[in-house]
């Protein structure tokens, strides 16, 4: 029932665990040991990360982008919303665990309320959002941040894209604690996996303009993707608040 079973059943998860072990080792050796200033980007393996980026870009151009657009084209928007809502709904128990690990009572209340309200639609609707209940999207990467673990090394994961050591570990843990992946039936686990893939395709379709602008229109798409990811991630780690110290100074003189 526990993690080893999942890793045996879904081969790429096993791979992720290996990657995580590797990155943890790297992290202990270098990144986490040395204090990193907030503005400095910790990307010592940029050269190899750029190769993964090129691979991801090729994959997006050849497969993911067109598939996402096809999915967006043939699927009624209502259904796309339902898939996305349901995928989010399945993640709520894991989110609640992270709220607890972060000792975030308010967040836990929000998650519980969201789960209760959205259960009325079997997770297919997002009544909670419509009622103005803010979602906190807590994840294990954020939990590690709350515990004081540093960001580690920036890298791109094959297929999944930009991440940091902390977020990659977070991703593996979140996958492991997702109740769908703890189910007995492998069919149910694959169905859960299918929903998360469709959810991602829906996002790729919905944000196609900004994604394509970043990947195909920016001067250096590796740097653009890295900048967007790290800025947005910082914002989420700070629970949707901009750190005042990070603001630009309009009176700066060069």
């Amino acid at each position, binding site marked *: 029932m526990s993690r080893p079973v999942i890793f045996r059943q879904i081969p790429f998860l096993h791979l992720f665990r290996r990657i995580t072990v590797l990155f943890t080792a790297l992290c202990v050796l270098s990144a986490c040991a040395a204090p990193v200033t907030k503005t400095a980007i910790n990307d010592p393996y940029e050269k190899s990360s750029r190769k993964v980026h090129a691979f991801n870009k090729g994959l997006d151009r050849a497969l993911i982008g067109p598939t996402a657009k096809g999915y967006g084209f043939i699927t009624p928007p209502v259904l796309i919303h339902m898939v996305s809502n349901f995928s989010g709904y399945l993640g709520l128990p894991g989110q609640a665990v992270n709220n607890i690990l972060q000792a975030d009572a308010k967040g836990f209340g929000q998650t519980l309320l969201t789960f209760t309200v959205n259960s009325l639609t079997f997770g297919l609707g997002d009544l909670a959002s419509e009622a103005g209940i803010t979602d906190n999207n807590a994840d294990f990467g954020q939990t590690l941040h709350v515990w004081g673990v540093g960001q580690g090394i920036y890298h791109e994961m094959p297929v999944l894209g930009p991440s940091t050591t902390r977020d990659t570990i977070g991703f593996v843990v979140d996958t492991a604690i997702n109740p769908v992946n703890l189910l007995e039936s492998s069919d149910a686990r694959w169905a859960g996996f299918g929903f998360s893939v469709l959810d991602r395709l829906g996002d790729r379709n919905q944000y196609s303009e900004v994604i394509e602008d970043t990947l195909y229109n920016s001067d250096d798409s590796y740097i653009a993707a890295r*900048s967007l990811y790290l800025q947005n991630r910082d914002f989420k780690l700070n629970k949707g608040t901009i750190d005042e110290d990070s603001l630009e100074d309009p009176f700066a003189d060069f």
Partner: protein
Amino acid sequence: MPIFKTSNRRTFLAGIGATGTILALPSAGFSLTKADAEKLINRLSDDIFKVINSGKSGPAMYKDFDRIFGKYAAVNAIARTCLGPPWRGATPAQQKAYTAAFREYLSRKYGKRFREFIGSEINVVSARAVKSGVLVKSLVTFKGSAPFIVEWQVFERNGKQQMFDLYIEGISMIKTEREEVGSMLDRSGGKVAKLITRLKAAG
């Protein structure tokens, strides 16, 4: 005589009053309040959404965004900050040409971003004082999904309130464009003249 004296005193008092008013005028506009900044962003976002909902074509919209940008934003300060130290190494003519090219580039790029807000609704929800001004928070809501947080950094210079930076879900326009302009400059061999040509083709 007594009448004359009184009127003289009145004139004197009126004089003090007038001086007070003159002195009070610049200082009244000197400290940017949260309410002022919210008002500015309300007007700015109204203007942006009018353009989005106008049904105009892309290029026509970018022209409108360029006008709005010039009206509300500190274009020179934004352009300078995105270029950083190389600004100093540029000639005044290059600085001018760079600022003009950068402004058009920004109108195209962020015009595209704003166009994605079509069908949504924007509301200013709060403001907080920060070191260099006020950060105004707004929510962009699409029906049936969680809202986007868009924040606007407003500052005041010479009594004029202007928008400086824009954050969409924590992603700063200035930070993002500084990286972009930086990599364009790298590829231009550090030459500002070549950077200007690149900017004109980008976005």
